[in-house]
Protein backbone atom coordinates (compact mmCIF):
# COMPACT_ATOMS: atom_id res chain seq x y z
CA UNK A 1 0.00 0.00 0.00
CA UNK A 2 1.42 3.37 -1.05
CA UNK A 3 -1.06 5.62 0.74
CA UNK A 4 -0.10 7.81 3.65
CA UNK A 5 -1.82 9.97 6.21
CA UNK A 6 -0.12 13.36 5.95
CA UNK A 7 -0.28 15.37 9.16
CA UNK A 8 0.25 19.08 8.55
CA UNK A 9 1.05 20.69 11.87
CA UNK A 10 1.70 24.28 12.89
CA UNK A 11 0.10 27.28 14.51
CA UNK A 12 -1.60 29.00 11.57
CA UNK A 13 -4.69 27.05 10.48
CA UNK A 14 -5.28 29.14 7.34
CA UNK A 15 -1.73 28.45 6.19
CA UNK A 16 -2.09 24.76 6.97
CA UNK A 17 -5.34 24.51 5.01
CA UNK A 18 -3.82 26.32 2.01
CA UNK A 19 -0.88 23.93 2.12
CA UNK A 20 -3.27 20.98 2.29
CA UNK A 21 -5.18 22.30 -0.71
CA UNK A 22 -2.02 22.74 -2.76
CA UNK A 23 -0.91 19.21 -1.88
CA UNK A 24 -4.39 17.97 -2.77
CA UNK A 25 -4.23 19.58 -6.22
CA UNK A 26 -0.86 18.00 -6.94
CA UNK A 27 -2.13 14.61 -5.84
CA UNK A 28 -5.33 14.89 -7.87
CA UNK A 29 -3.25 15.82 -10.90
CA UNK A 30 -1.38 12.57 -10.35
CA UNK A 31 -4.65 10.67 -10.39
CA UNK A 32 -4.66 10.07 -6.62
CA UNK A 33 -7.71 10.07 -4.37
CA UNK A 34 -7.51 12.45 -1.45
CA UNK A 35 -9.41 13.45 1.66
CA UNK A 36 -8.63 16.68 3.49
CA UNK A 37 -9.57 16.59 7.16
CA UNK A 38 -9.42 19.77 9.23
CA UNK A 39 -9.14 18.78 12.89
CA UNK A 40 -11.14 21.74 14.17
CA UNK A 41 -13.97 21.04 11.73
CA UNK A 42 -14.40 17.35 12.55
CA UNK A 43 -13.95 17.82 16.32
CA UNK A 44 -17.67 17.88 16.96
CA UNK A 45 -18.43 14.60 15.22
CA UNK A 46 -15.25 12.59 15.66
CA UNK A 47 -14.73 13.90 19.18
CA UNK A 48 -18.25 13.10 20.30
CA UNK A 49 -18.30 12.12 23.95
CA UNK A 50 -14.82 13.49 24.53
CA UNK A 51 -13.85 16.38 26.76
CA UNK A 52 -10.66 18.41 27.03
CA UNK A 53 -8.74 16.10 29.35
CA UNK A 54 -5.32 14.89 28.13
CA UNK A 55 -6.69 11.33 27.84
CA UNK A 56 -9.62 12.51 25.72
CA UNK A 57 -7.32 14.56 23.50
CA UNK A 58 -5.15 11.47 22.99
CA UNK A 59 -8.25 9.46 22.07
CA UNK A 60 -9.32 12.09 19.56
CA UNK A 61 -5.89 12.09 17.94
CA UNK A 62 -6.00 8.30 17.80
CA UNK A 63 -9.42 8.45 16.11
CA UNK A 64 -7.99 10.75 13.45
CA UNK A 65 -5.12 8.32 12.92
CA UNK A 66 -7.57 5.43 12.72
CA UNK A 67 -9.71 7.27 10.17
CA UNK A 68 -6.64 8.15 8.09
CA UNK A 69 -5.51 4.55 8.17
CA UNK A 70 -8.92 3.32 7.05
CA UNK A 71 -8.98 5.78 4.15
CA UNK A 72 -5.44 4.74 3.23
CA UNK A 73 -6.59 1.12 3.08
CA UNK A 74 -9.10 2.26 0.47
CA UNK A 75 -6.42 3.95 -1.64
CA UNK A 76 -7.08 7.46 -0.43
CA UNK A 77 -4.36 9.86 0.67
CA UNK A 78 -5.48 11.58 3.87
CA UNK A 79 -4.31 15.08 4.72
CA UNK A 80 -4.97 16.07 8.32
CA UNK A 81 -4.78 19.72 9.34
CA UNK A 82 -3.74 19.44 12.94
CA UNK A 83 -3.10 22.25 15.42
CA UNK A 84 -4.25 20.64 18.61
CA UNK A 85 -2.65 17.20 18.94
CA UNK A 86 0.39 16.94 21.18
CA UNK A 87 3.65 15.36 20.05
CA UNK A 88 3.13 12.50 22.51
CA UNK A 89 -0.31 11.72 21.09
CA UNK A 90 0.92 11.93 17.53
CA UNK A 91 3.85 9.65 18.34
CA UNK A 92 1.39 7.06 19.62
CA UNK A 93 -0.55 7.31 16.34
CA UNK A 94 2.72 6.96 14.47
CA UNK A 95 3.46 3.76 16.36
CA UNK A 96 -0.03 2.37 15.86
CA UNK A 97 -0.31 3.13 12.16
CA UNK A 98 2.81 2.83 10.03
CA UNK A 99 1.50 5.13 7.32
CA UNK A 100 2.10 8.34 9.33
CA UNK A 101 3.93 11.32 7.81
CA UNK A 102 4.22 14.66 9.57
CA UNK A 103 5.23 18.03 8.17
CA UNK A 104 5.59 21.11 10.33
CA UNK A 105 4.39 24.04 8.22
CA UNK A 106 5.82 27.46 8.95
CA UNK A 107 6.65 28.77 5.49
CA UNK A 108 4.68 29.83 2.44
CA UNK A 109 1.97 27.20 1.71
CA UNK A 110 3.10 26.65 -1.86
CA UNK A 111 6.69 26.09 -0.79
CA UNK A 112 5.54 23.79 2.01
CA UNK A 113 3.36 21.83 -0.42
CA UNK A 114 6.28 21.50 -2.81
CA UNK A 115 8.38 19.97 -0.02
CA UNK A 116 5.67 17.47 0.82
CA UNK A 117 5.22 16.49 -2.82
CA UNK A 118 9.02 16.14 -3.26
CA UNK A 119 9.11 13.86 -0.22
CA UNK A 120 6.28 11.71 -1.59
CA UNK A 121 8.05 11.52 -4.95
CA UNK A 122 11.41 10.64 -3.35
CA UNK A 123 9.73 7.83 -1.41
CA UNK A 124 8.16 6.69 -4.69
CA UNK A 125 4.68 7.03 -3.22
CA UNK A 126 3.48 9.11 -6.16
CA UNK A 127 4.71 9.55 -9.74
CA UNK A 128 6.98 12.46 -10.54
CA UNK A 129 4.73 13.70 -13.30
CA UNK A 130 1.09 14.57 -13.37
CA UNK A 131 -1.23 12.08 -15.03
CA UNK A 132 -1.24 11.81 -18.79
CA UNK A 133 -4.27 13.65 -20.11
CA UNK A 134 -3.94 12.37 -23.65
CA UNK A 135 -3.90 8.74 -24.77
CA UNK A 136 -1.19 7.82 -27.30
CA UNK A 137 -3.61 8.25 -30.19
CA UNK A 138 -4.84 11.58 -28.86
CA UNK A 139 -1.27 12.77 -28.31
CA UNK A 140 -0.50 11.92 -31.94
CA UNK A 141 -3.62 13.79 -33.08
CA UNK A 142 -2.61 16.86 -31.06
CA UNK A 143 0.98 16.65 -32.32
CA UNK A 144 -0.18 16.58 -35.93
CA UNK A 145 -2.58 19.45 -35.37
CA UNK A 146 0.01 21.63 -33.63
CA UNK A 147 2.60 20.85 -36.29
CA UNK A 148 0.09 21.81 -38.97
CA UNK A 149 -0.60 25.02 -37.14
CA UNK A 150 3.13 25.76 -36.92
CA UNK A 151 3.25 25.84 -33.14
CA UNK A 152 5.86 23.11 -32.82
Amino acid at each position, binding site marked *: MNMRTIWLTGSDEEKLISTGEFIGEELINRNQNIELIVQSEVREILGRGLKDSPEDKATFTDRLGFLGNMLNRNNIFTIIISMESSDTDKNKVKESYGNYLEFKVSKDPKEAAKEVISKLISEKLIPEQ*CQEVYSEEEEEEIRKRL*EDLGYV
Partner: protein
Amino acid sequence: MAKKVLIIGWDCAPPDWVFDKWIDQLPTLKSLIKKGSYGNLTSTIPPITVPAWQCMMTSKDPGQLGVYGFRNRKDYSYEGQSFSNGSDILEPAVWDVLGNADKKSILVGVPQTYPPRKINGNMLTCFLTPSVKTSQYTYPNELRTEIEENIGEYIPDVKQFRTEDRDFILKQIYEATETRFKTLRYLMKNKEWDFAMIVEMGTDRIHHSFWKFLDPAHPKYEKGNKYENVIPEYYRYLDKELAETLKLVDLNETAVMVVSDHGARAMVGGLCINEWLIKEGLLTVKEYPKTNTAIEKLQVDWAKTKVWGSGGYYARIFLNVEGREPNGQIPKAEYEKFRRELKEKIENIKDEKGNKLATVAHIPEEIYKSVNRIPPDLIVIFDQLRWRSIGSIGDGSVYSYENDTGPDDANHAQEGMYVLSLPNGKENRDDKHHLYDIAPTVLDLLGVKVPSDMIGKSMYGGLVGAR
Protein backbone atom coordinates in the same frame (compact mmCIF):
# COMPACT_ATOMS: atom_id res chain seq x y z
CA MET B 1 -17.92 48.66 -10.80
CA ALA B 2 -19.87 46.58 -13.25
CA LYS B 3 -22.53 43.99 -12.69
CA LYS B 4 -21.15 41.73 -15.39
CA VAL B 5 -17.97 41.39 -17.46
CA LEU B 6 -17.87 40.00 -20.98
CA ILE B 7 -14.54 39.19 -22.67
CA ILE B 8 -14.33 38.54 -26.39
CA GLY B 9 -10.92 37.07 -27.20
CA TRP B 10 -9.58 37.43 -30.71
CA ASP B 11 -6.49 35.25 -30.71
CA CYS B 12 -3.57 36.93 -32.50
CA ALA B 13 -5.48 40.17 -33.29
CA PRO B 14 -2.85 42.83 -34.09
CA PRO B 15 -3.43 46.34 -32.69
CA ASP B 16 -1.54 48.06 -35.50
CA TRP B 17 -4.03 46.69 -38.04
CA VAL B 18 -7.22 46.63 -35.98
CA PHE B 19 -6.90 50.13 -34.49
CA ASP B 20 -4.87 51.90 -37.13
CA LYS B 21 -6.14 50.43 -40.40
CA TRP B 22 -9.47 48.68 -39.96
CA ILE B 23 -11.27 50.49 -37.17
CA ASP B 24 -13.56 52.50 -39.47
CA GLN B 25 -14.85 49.24 -40.93
CA LEU B 26 -15.59 47.84 -37.46
CA PRO B 27 -18.46 49.95 -36.14
CA THR B 28 -19.21 47.82 -33.08
CA LEU B 29 -15.64 47.76 -31.89
CA LYS B 30 -15.40 51.48 -32.58
CA SER B 31 -18.45 52.11 -30.42
CA LEU B 32 -16.79 50.20 -27.58
CA ILE B 33 -13.61 52.23 -27.95
CA LYS B 34 -15.63 55.43 -27.55
CA LYS B 35 -16.58 54.24 -24.08
CA GLY B 36 -13.27 53.18 -22.61
CA SER B 37 -9.62 52.46 -22.74
CA TYR B 38 -7.88 50.67 -25.59
CA GLY B 39 -4.44 50.05 -26.96
CA ASN B 40 -1.55 47.65 -27.23
CA LEU B 41 -1.37 44.80 -24.74
CA THR B 42 2.11 43.42 -24.17
CA SER B 43 2.21 39.65 -24.37
CA THR B 44 4.25 37.04 -22.57
CA ILE B 45 7.65 35.72 -23.56
CA PRO B 46 7.06 33.70 -25.65
CA PRO B 47 4.01 35.42 -27.21
CA ILE B 48 2.21 32.18 -27.97
CA THR B 49 -1.38 31.09 -27.37
CA VAL B 50 -0.14 28.53 -24.83
CA PRO B 51 0.74 29.84 -22.28
CA ALA B 52 -0.38 33.44 -23.05
CA TRP B 53 -4.13 33.07 -22.43
CA GLN B 54 -3.63 31.26 -19.14
CA CYS B 55 -1.04 33.84 -18.08
CA MET B 56 -3.65 36.48 -18.85
CA MET B 57 -6.38 34.79 -16.84
CA THR B 58 -4.23 33.76 -13.85
CA SER B 59 -2.05 36.90 -13.89
CA LYS B 60 1.02 34.69 -13.58
CA ASP B 61 4.03 34.47 -15.88
CA PRO B 62 4.96 31.32 -17.86
CA GLY B 63 7.65 30.41 -15.31
CA GLN B 64 5.18 30.59 -12.46
CA LEU B 65 2.77 28.38 -14.40
CA GLY B 66 5.62 26.07 -15.46
CA VAL B 67 4.32 26.23 -19.04
CA TYR B 68 6.80 27.51 -21.63
CA GLY B 69 4.90 26.71 -24.78
CA PHE B 70 2.76 24.02 -26.33
CA ARG B 71 5.39 21.36 -25.73
CA ASN B 72 7.33 21.14 -22.49
CA ARG B 73 9.96 18.81 -21.12
CA LYS B 74 8.47 16.38 -18.68
CA ASP B 75 11.87 15.10 -17.55
CA TYR B 76 15.54 15.45 -18.53
CA SER B 77 15.51 12.59 -21.00
CA TYR B 78 16.07 13.45 -24.66
CA GLU B 79 12.63 12.29 -25.71
CA GLY B 80 10.57 13.38 -22.72
CA GLN B 81 8.28 16.14 -23.94
CA SER B 82 4.57 16.41 -23.42
CA PHE B 83 1.86 18.63 -24.82
CA SER B 84 0.60 21.14 -22.35
CA ASN B 85 -3.05 21.16 -21.36
CA GLY B 86 -5.34 22.47 -18.68
CA SER B 87 -4.17 20.04 -16.03
CA ASP B 88 -0.79 21.82 -16.02
CA ILE B 89 -2.42 24.98 -14.68
CA LEU B 90 -2.29 24.79 -10.90
CA GLU B 91 -2.74 28.50 -10.25
CA PRO B 92 -6.29 29.79 -9.80
CA ALA B 93 -7.69 31.50 -12.88
CA VAL B 94 -10.04 34.45 -12.69
CA TRP B 95 -13.10 32.14 -12.91
CA ASP B 96 -11.79 30.18 -9.88
CA VAL B 97 -11.45 33.36 -7.84
CA LEU B 98 -14.90 34.50 -8.97
CA GLY B 99 -16.35 31.09 -8.13
CA ASN B 100 -15.04 31.40 -4.57
CA ALA B 101 -16.89 34.72 -4.39
CA ASP B 102 -20.06 32.96 -5.54
CA LYS B 103 -19.97 34.47 -9.02
CA LYS B 104 -20.79 32.39 -12.07
CA SER B 105 -18.78 32.11 -15.28
CA ILE B 106 -19.29 31.02 -18.87
CA LEU B 107 -16.21 29.93 -20.83
CA VAL B 108 -16.13 29.01 -24.51
CA GLY B 109 -12.89 27.86 -26.11
CA VAL B 110 -10.44 29.51 -23.72
CA PRO B 111 -7.06 27.95 -24.58
CA GLN B 112 -5.68 25.38 -22.15
CA THR B 113 -9.02 24.60 -20.56
CA TYR B 114 -9.01 20.99 -21.79
CA PRO B 115 -9.62 18.71 -19.93
CA PRO B 116 -12.67 20.47 -18.46
CA ARG B 117 -12.75 20.95 -14.73
CA LYS B 118 -15.27 22.04 -12.21
CA ILE B 119 -16.07 25.73 -12.21
CA ASN B 120 -18.93 27.70 -10.76
CA GLY B 121 -20.68 27.93 -14.10
CA ASN B 122 -20.48 26.37 -17.54
CA MET B 123 -17.60 25.75 -19.90
CA LEU B 124 -16.73 24.30 -23.28
CA THR B 125 -13.07 23.46 -23.76
CA CYS B 126 -10.57 24.71 -26.31
CA PHE B 127 -8.83 23.67 -29.51
CA LEU B 128 -6.62 21.27 -27.53
CA THR B 129 -9.65 18.97 -27.21
CA PRO B 130 -8.62 15.81 -29.10
CA SER B 131 -12.09 15.03 -30.44
CA VAL B 132 -15.59 16.32 -29.73
CA LYS B 133 -16.85 12.83 -30.54
CA THR B 134 -14.78 10.92 -27.99
CA SER B 135 -13.51 13.51 -25.49
CA GLN B 136 -15.48 15.08 -22.69
CA TYR B 137 -15.37 18.78 -23.55
CA THR B 138 -17.91 20.43 -21.26
CA TYR B 139 -18.45 21.18 -17.63
CA PRO B 140 -20.85 20.06 -16.41
CA ASN B 141 -20.90 16.83 -18.41
CA GLU B 142 -24.56 17.14 -19.38
CA LEU B 143 -23.94 20.51 -21.02
CA ARG B 144 -22.47 18.60 -23.94
CA THR B 145 -25.83 17.05 -24.86
CA GLU B 146 -27.60 20.36 -24.35
CA ILE B 147 -25.23 22.12 -26.77
CA GLU B 148 -25.41 19.33 -29.33
CA GLU B 149 -29.21 19.42 -29.24
CA ASN B 150 -29.54 23.19 -29.39
CA ILE B 151 -26.57 24.33 -31.46
CA GLY B 152 -25.15 21.26 -33.18
CA GLU B 153 -21.62 19.88 -33.17
CA TYR B 154 -19.21 22.12 -31.32
CA ILE B 155 -16.16 23.01 -33.44
CA PRO B 156 -13.17 23.82 -31.23
CA ASP B 157 -10.83 24.50 -34.17
CA VAL B 158 -10.35 24.41 -37.91
CA LYS B 159 -10.21 20.72 -38.75
CA GLN B 160 -7.80 20.80 -41.68
CA PHE B 161 -5.43 23.70 -41.58
CA ARG B 162 -2.35 22.77 -43.55
CA THR B 163 -3.67 22.70 -47.08
CA GLU B 164 -3.04 24.86 -50.12
CA ASP B 165 -6.80 25.03 -50.70
CA ARG B 166 -7.31 28.46 -49.12
CA ASP B 167 -10.99 28.60 -49.96
CA PHE B 168 -11.51 25.40 -47.99
CA ILE B 169 -9.61 26.82 -44.99
CA LEU B 170 -11.70 29.98 -45.16
CA LYS B 171 -14.94 28.03 -45.23
CA GLN B 172 -13.87 26.05 -42.17
CA ILE B 173 -12.86 29.20 -40.28
CA TYR B 174 -16.25 30.85 -40.84
CA GLU B 175 -18.12 27.65 -39.86
CA ALA B 176 -16.15 27.30 -36.64
CA THR B 177 -16.53 30.97 -35.70
CA GLU B 178 -20.26 30.97 -36.32
CA THR B 179 -20.75 27.85 -34.20
CA ARG B 180 -18.68 29.18 -31.31
CA PHE B 181 -20.47 32.53 -31.14
CA LYS B 182 -23.86 30.79 -31.37
CA THR B 183 -22.74 28.61 -28.46
CA LEU B 184 -21.66 31.62 -26.41
CA ARG B 185 -24.94 33.41 -27.03
CA TYR B 186 -26.93 30.29 -26.18
CA LEU B 187 -25.16 30.10 -22.83
CA MET B 188 -25.50 33.83 -22.17
CA LYS B 189 -29.24 33.56 -22.80
CA ASN B 190 -29.87 30.37 -20.89
CA LYS B 191 -27.42 30.28 -17.97
CA GLU B 192 -26.77 32.59 -15.09
CA TRP B 193 -23.50 34.45 -15.40
CA ASP B 194 -21.43 37.28 -13.97
CA PHE B 195 -18.42 36.67 -16.20
CA ALA B 196 -18.49 35.33 -19.76
CA MET B 197 -15.53 34.75 -22.04
CA ILE B 198 -14.96 33.35 -25.51
CA VAL B 199 -11.66 32.99 -27.33
CA GLU B 200 -12.05 32.93 -31.09
CA MET B 201 -9.16 31.10 -32.79
CA GLY B 202 -10.27 31.92 -36.33
CA THR B 203 -8.30 35.17 -36.19
CA ASP B 204 -5.06 33.28 -35.61
CA ARG B 205 -5.80 30.68 -38.26
CA ILE B 206 -6.72 33.26 -40.90
CA HIS B 207 -3.53 35.24 -40.24
CA HIS B 208 -1.31 32.20 -40.65
CA SER B 209 -3.07 31.23 -43.88
CA PHE B 210 -3.66 34.58 -45.56
CA TRP B 211 -1.18 37.12 -44.22
CA LYS B 212 1.00 37.15 -47.32
CA PHE B 213 -2.03 38.22 -49.38
CA LEU B 214 -2.65 41.18 -47.07
CA ASP B 215 0.61 42.67 -45.90
CA PRO B 216 2.88 44.58 -48.30
CA ALA B 217 5.71 43.86 -45.84
CA HIS B 218 5.47 40.16 -46.65
CA PRO B 219 8.08 39.09 -49.23
CA LYS B 220 5.43 37.21 -51.22
CA TYR B 221 2.76 39.91 -51.21
CA GLU B 222 1.26 40.76 -54.61
CA LYS B 223 -0.90 43.83 -54.90
CA GLY B 224 -4.43 43.20 -56.11
CA ASN B 225 -4.33 39.47 -55.40
CA LYS B 226 -7.55 37.46 -55.06
CA TYR B 227 -7.32 37.11 -51.27
CA GLU B 228 -6.16 40.62 -50.41
CA ASN B 229 -9.33 41.49 -48.49
CA VAL B 230 -9.98 38.12 -46.87
CA ILE B 231 -8.63 39.13 -43.45
CA PRO B 232 -10.35 42.54 -43.16
CA GLU B 233 -13.59 40.93 -44.38
CA TYR B 234 -13.32 38.34 -41.63
CA TYR B 235 -12.82 41.08 -39.04
CA ARG B 236 -15.94 42.78 -40.35
CA TYR B 237 -17.75 39.49 -39.86
CA LEU B 238 -16.36 39.26 -36.31
CA ASP B 239 -17.59 42.79 -35.67
CA LYS B 240 -21.09 41.64 -36.64
CA GLU B 241 -20.82 38.66 -34.28
CA LEU B 242 -19.74 41.12 -31.59
CA ALA B 243 -22.78 43.28 -32.32
CA GLU B 244 -25.12 40.25 -32.09
CA THR B 245 -23.53 39.25 -28.79
CA LEU B 246 -23.81 42.76 -27.33
CA LYS B 247 -27.56 42.67 -27.97
CA LEU B 248 -27.71 40.23 -25.05
CA VAL B 249 -26.09 42.55 -22.52
CA ASP B 250 -27.08 45.77 -20.87
CA LEU B 251 -24.15 48.07 -21.58
CA ASN B 252 -25.19 50.28 -18.69
CA GLU B 253 -24.14 47.57 -16.28
CA THR B 254 -21.74 45.36 -18.26
CA ALA B 255 -18.05 45.96 -18.89
CA VAL B 256 -16.98 44.58 -22.26
CA MET B 257 -13.43 43.69 -23.20
CA VAL B 258 -12.04 42.67 -26.57
CA VAL B 259 -8.54 41.29 -26.15
CA SER B 260 -5.86 39.34 -27.95
CA ASP B 261 -3.00 37.28 -26.57
CA HIS B 262 -0.42 38.51 -29.09
CA GLY B 263 -0.26 40.24 -32.44
CA ALA B 264 0.71 39.18 -35.93
CA ARG B 265 3.34 40.17 -38.43
CA ALA B 266 4.72 39.04 -41.75
CA MET B 267 7.08 36.11 -41.57
CA VAL B 268 10.25 36.69 -43.53
CA GLY B 269 11.52 33.14 -43.23
CA GLY B 270 12.75 30.44 -40.93
CA LEU B 271 16.06 29.96 -39.15
CA CYS B 272 16.97 26.31 -39.01
CA ILE B 273 18.31 26.26 -35.49
CA ASN B 274 19.60 22.69 -35.55
CA GLU B 275 21.36 23.23 -38.90
CA TRP B 276 23.09 26.20 -37.27
CA LEU B 277 24.03 24.13 -34.23
CA ILE B 278 25.50 21.44 -36.53
CA LYS B 279 27.57 24.07 -38.34
CA GLU B 280 28.79 25.40 -34.98
CA GLY B 281 29.88 21.87 -33.98
CA LEU B 282 27.46 21.77 -31.10
CA LEU B 283 25.12 19.09 -32.48
CA THR B 284 25.97 15.84 -34.25
CA VAL B 285 23.56 13.47 -35.94
CA LYS B 286 24.64 9.93 -36.74
CA GLU B 287 23.36 10.16 -40.30
CA TYR B 288 22.47 13.42 -42.01
CA PRO B 289 19.01 12.97 -43.58
CA LYS B 290 18.32 13.26 -47.31
CA THR B 291 15.10 15.17 -46.76
CA ASN B 292 13.88 17.55 -44.08
CA THR B 293 13.33 15.48 -40.95
CA ALA B 294 12.27 16.44 -37.45
CA ILE B 295 15.14 16.13 -34.97
CA GLU B 296 13.01 13.81 -32.81
CA LYS B 297 13.05 11.28 -35.65
CA LEU B 298 16.83 11.37 -36.10
CA GLN B 299 19.57 9.54 -34.27
CA VAL B 300 21.52 12.19 -32.44
CA ASP B 301 25.05 11.33 -31.35
CA TRP B 302 24.61 12.55 -27.80
CA ALA B 303 28.24 11.89 -26.92
CA LYS B 304 29.16 14.56 -29.48
CA THR B 305 26.27 16.93 -28.82
CA LYS B 306 26.16 19.85 -26.43
CA VAL B 307 23.02 21.63 -27.61
CA TRP B 308 19.83 20.90 -29.52
CA GLY B 309 16.79 22.95 -30.33
CA SER B 310 13.12 22.86 -31.21
CA GLY B 311 11.14 24.69 -33.83
CA GLY B 312 7.97 26.73 -33.70
CA TYR B 313 7.31 30.45 -33.78
CA TYR B 314 10.25 30.78 -31.40
CA ALA B 315 13.14 28.46 -30.54
CA ARG B 316 13.59 26.43 -27.41
CA ILE B 317 17.23 25.58 -26.79
CA PHE B 318 18.31 22.66 -24.61
CA LEU B 319 21.77 22.07 -23.23
CA ASN B 320 23.17 18.58 -22.77
CA VAL B 321 24.46 18.88 -19.21
CA GLU B 322 26.55 16.34 -17.32
CA GLY B 323 24.59 14.78 -14.46
CA ARG B 324 21.33 16.23 -15.76
CA GLU B 325 20.77 14.71 -19.19
CA PRO B 326 21.48 10.96 -19.63
CA ASN B 327 24.65 11.52 -21.70
CA GLY B 328 25.46 15.07 -20.67
CA GLN B 329 28.51 16.72 -22.26
CA ILE B 330 28.68 20.13 -20.62
CA PRO B 331 30.26 19.93 -17.15
CA LYS B 332 27.84 21.20 -14.55
CA ALA B 333 30.35 23.78 -13.32
CA GLU B 334 30.59 25.26 -16.81
CA TYR B 335 26.85 25.38 -17.46
CA GLU B 336 26.24 29.09 -16.77
CA LYS B 337 29.30 30.26 -18.68
CA PHE B 338 28.39 28.02 -21.61
CA ARG B 339 24.79 29.22 -21.62
CA ARG B 340 25.81 32.88 -21.63
CA GLU B 341 28.28 32.36 -24.47
CA LEU B 342 25.67 30.49 -26.46
CA LYS B 343 23.14 33.26 -25.84
CA GLU B 344 25.60 35.78 -27.28
CA LYS B 345 26.35 33.60 -30.31
CA ILE B 346 22.65 33.07 -31.08
CA GLU B 347 21.94 36.77 -30.72
CA ASN B 348 24.64 37.41 -33.31
CA ILE B 349 23.21 35.12 -35.99
CA LYS B 350 22.86 37.25 -39.12
CA ASP B 351 20.49 36.89 -42.04
CA GLU B 352 21.62 35.41 -45.37
CA LYS B 353 22.83 38.79 -46.58
CA GLY B 354 24.88 39.37 -43.43
CA ASN B 355 22.45 41.88 -41.88
CA LYS B 356 22.13 41.95 -38.12
CA LEU B 357 18.89 40.56 -36.72
CA ALA B 358 17.21 41.84 -33.55
CA THR B 359 17.31 38.43 -31.91
CA VAL B 360 17.04 37.93 -28.16
CA ALA B 361 17.88 34.67 -26.40
CA HIS B 362 16.14 34.84 -23.04
CA ILE B 363 17.37 33.11 -19.89
CA PRO B 364 14.19 31.88 -18.17
CA GLU B 365 15.44 32.54 -14.63
CA GLU B 366 16.01 36.19 -15.57
CA ILE B 367 12.61 36.94 -17.09
CA TYR B 368 10.19 35.05 -14.85
CA LYS B 369 9.31 35.56 -11.19
CA SER B 370 9.89 31.88 -10.56
CA VAL B 371 10.74 28.92 -12.76
CA ASN B 372 8.62 25.83 -12.22
CA ARG B 373 8.84 22.44 -13.89
CA ILE B 374 11.56 22.19 -16.58
CA PRO B 375 12.16 25.30 -18.68
CA PRO B 376 14.20 25.38 -21.88
CA ASP B 377 17.74 26.60 -21.18
CA LEU B 378 17.18 29.46 -23.61
CA ILE B 379 14.04 30.87 -25.23
CA VAL B 380 14.94 32.53 -28.50
CA ILE B 381 12.86 35.14 -30.31
CA PHE B 382 14.43 35.63 -33.75
CA ASP B 383 14.45 39.18 -35.09
CA GLN B 384 11.38 40.28 -33.12
CA LEU B 385 9.54 37.29 -34.60
CA ARG B 386 10.10 38.23 -38.24
CA TRP B 387 11.77 34.81 -38.46
CA ARG B 388 10.44 31.59 -37.04
CA SER B 389 12.49 28.68 -35.72
CA ILE B 390 12.74 25.56 -37.83
CA GLY B 391 13.71 22.46 -35.89
CA SER B 392 14.02 19.95 -38.71
CA ILE B 393 17.30 18.99 -40.38
CA GLY B 394 18.04 18.07 -44.00
CA ASP B 395 17.94 21.31 -45.96
CA GLY B 396 21.66 21.91 -45.61
CA SER B 397 21.05 25.60 -45.02
CA VAL B 398 20.53 27.70 -41.92
CA TYR B 399 17.89 29.75 -43.76
CA SER B 400 14.60 28.62 -45.19
CA TYR B 401 11.82 30.50 -46.89
CA GLU B 402 9.36 27.61 -46.72
CA ASN B 403 7.98 26.33 -43.46
CA ASP B 404 9.00 22.74 -42.70
CA THR B 405 5.38 21.84 -41.95
CA GLY B 406 3.78 23.58 -44.94
CA PRO B 407 2.78 27.09 -45.95
CA ASP B 408 2.60 29.70 -43.23
CA ASP B 409 2.46 33.43 -43.84
CA ALA B 410 2.46 35.08 -40.46
CA ASN B 411 4.40 34.96 -37.26
CA HIS B 412 3.27 36.30 -33.93
CA ALA B 413 4.06 39.78 -32.64
CA GLN B 414 4.81 40.76 -29.07
CA GLU B 415 1.97 43.28 -28.83
CA GLY B 416 -1.60 42.12 -28.65
CA MET B 417 -4.59 44.44 -28.23
CA TYR B 418 -7.27 45.31 -25.74
CA VAL B 419 -10.43 47.35 -25.54
CA LEU B 420 -12.11 47.90 -22.19
CA SER B 421 -15.50 49.52 -22.57
CA LEU B 422 -17.28 50.66 -19.43
CA PRO B 423 -20.65 52.08 -18.56
CA ASN B 424 -19.97 55.85 -18.59
CA GLY B 425 -16.43 55.32 -19.89
CA LYS B 426 -14.59 57.79 -22.13
CA GLU B 427 -12.23 57.10 -25.02
CA ASN B 428 -8.62 56.86 -23.94
CA ARG B 429 -5.67 55.23 -25.72
CA ASP B 430 -3.20 53.63 -23.33
CA ASP B 431 -0.52 51.31 -24.70
CA LYS B 432 1.19 50.56 -21.41
CA HIS B 433 -0.76 47.54 -20.23
CA HIS B 434 0.36 43.92 -20.04
CA LEU B 435 -1.88 40.92 -20.46
CA TYR B 436 -1.22 40.15 -16.78
CA ASP B 437 -3.47 43.16 -16.05
CA ILE B 438 -6.61 41.54 -17.47
CA ALA B 439 -7.46 39.15 -14.60
CA PRO B 440 -7.08 41.81 -11.85
CA THR B 441 -9.18 44.18 -13.96
CA VAL B 442 -12.01 41.64 -14.24
CA LEU B 443 -11.97 41.00 -10.50
CA ASP B 444 -11.79 44.69 -9.69
CA LEU B 445 -14.71 45.44 -12.01
CA LEU B 446 -16.82 42.80 -10.31
CA GLY B 447 -15.87 43.98 -6.84
CA VAL B 448 -13.91 40.85 -5.94
CA LYS B 449 -10.64 41.18 -4.03
CA VAL B 450 -7.61 40.71 -6.27
CA PRO B 451 -5.30 37.98 -4.87
CA SER B 452 -2.04 39.55 -3.76
CA ASP B 453 0.06 37.13 -5.82
CA MET B 454 -1.43 38.20 -9.15
CA ILE B 455 1.39 40.04 -10.89
CA GLY B 456 -0.73 42.40 -12.98
CA LYS B 457 -2.56 45.53 -11.94
CA SER B 458 -6.18 46.45 -12.50
CA MET B 459 -6.70 48.94 -15.32
CA TYR B 460 -10.01 49.93 -13.86
CA GLY B 461 -8.88 52.46 -11.27
CA GLY B 462 -6.91 54.40 -13.84
CA LEU B 463 -9.74 54.90 -16.30
CA VAL B 464 -11.50 58.17 -16.90
CA GLY B 465 -14.94 58.02 -15.37
CA ALA B 466 -14.27 54.55 -14.04
CA ARG B 467 -15.64 54.93 -10.55
